[in-house]
């Protein structure tokens, strides 16, 4: 991998910018599936309208510009079929970057359950890792995963993240308590895995 290898083109998907015209309606639809929100986030699940999502996207780009400690990508399909090519399937972001320590938080989601378990998440995560470690030159990455999100735990651990912290009973959903797990990945571990491959 070098300067000529695309940072954004994966095998199945690519990382892309926000499309303020088309994306809000699609994301709004994802947020009407409480499972999507609850797998992703600890905030109380609440659906978002397309107009609201448009505003959120505008506020997000402004925040990215001003805070200078986050990066947001849309995940879009790579396809020979012109109908499917560049279709929005998810998002991937790096945030809470503390530049002095070289650390950041990884978040990603595949919106439609029909688009999951196809390798899009793994593909996007690998692109995001290269961006974080080889372009932003970060030293370590964290991710926060609810105990009940087996899919995410599997994905992150398979990629090389290690479970570091278990916040006991930090989540209360459906009348049950769940742990919130922090996983972490160091730049030298990522290099090591790539050299071994």
């Amino acid at each position: 991998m070098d300067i000529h290898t695309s940072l954004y083109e994966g095998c199945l998907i690519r990382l892309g910018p926000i499309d303020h015209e088309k994306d809000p309606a699609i994301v709004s639809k994802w947020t009407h599936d409480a499972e999507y929100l609850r797998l992703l986030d600890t905030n109380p699940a609440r659906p978002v309208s397309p107009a609201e999502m448009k505003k959120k996207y505008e506020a997000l780009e402004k925040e990215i510009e001003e805070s200078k400690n986050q990066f947001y990508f849309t995940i879009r399909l790579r396809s020979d079929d012109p109908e499917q090519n560049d279709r929005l399937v998810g998002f991937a972001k790096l945030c809470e970057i503390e530049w002095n320590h070289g650390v950041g938080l990884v978040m990603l989601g595949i919106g439609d359950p029909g688009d999951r378990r196809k390798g899009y998440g793994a593909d996007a995560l690998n692109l995001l890792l290269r961006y974080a470690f080889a372009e932003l030159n970060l030293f370590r990455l964290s991710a926060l995963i609810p105990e009940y999100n087996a899919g995410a735990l599997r994905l992150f651990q398979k990629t090389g993240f290690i479970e570091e912290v278990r916040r006991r009973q930090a989540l209360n959903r459906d009348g049950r308590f769940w742990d919130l797990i922090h996983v972490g990945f160091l730049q030298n571990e990522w290099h090591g895995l790539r050299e071994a491959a």
Partner: protein
Amino acid sequence: MLATNIFCGALVRLTTEDPETAGKVLSGWARDSEYARLFDSPPGQLWSVKKIQSWRENGLERSEPCVFFFGVRTLQEDRLIGFTYFIGVSWTHGDAWMGIGLGEREYWGKGYGTDAIRVILRYAFTELNLRRVTLCVFAYNPRAIRVYEKVGFKDEGRLRQYLARDGQRHDMIIMGMLREEWLQRTMNA
């Protein structure tokens, strides 16, 4: 039972300070870099009194109800020696991040911090009715780690090599306390 002033401990009490007072002490304490680096991960910065004051003025309305920020004053001299807070209060899950910093060095190692933590924990579990409290502490701050363990926090893991300071890497330790654990300790005390 409701007659007890839960803002008061044995040595300290919780307060809310005017932005002017807060600005003065916070700006002053930030000039002690050891204190700042024990307490926080962002790079040490020396903001003016005026700037910090304006944050305190503007922040108060915006941050409620997910932030609770208190001054810590000694009962005996009524001296403002530090502050303690909850941030990121998640009402649906009943969890919050707790923090404390004693800017006045002469009050270190004398039980004031321990007392303040006891007060803020009682506030968390009997007034905010949280189910658990989370905190982070740096591996290079053994004094704080000891106090948290003494008070009953459990080590829940570490973010490996999170902090880079003076050419060395240090872990960030996450600790947690569950309501049941606090109740048990308080009843046994």
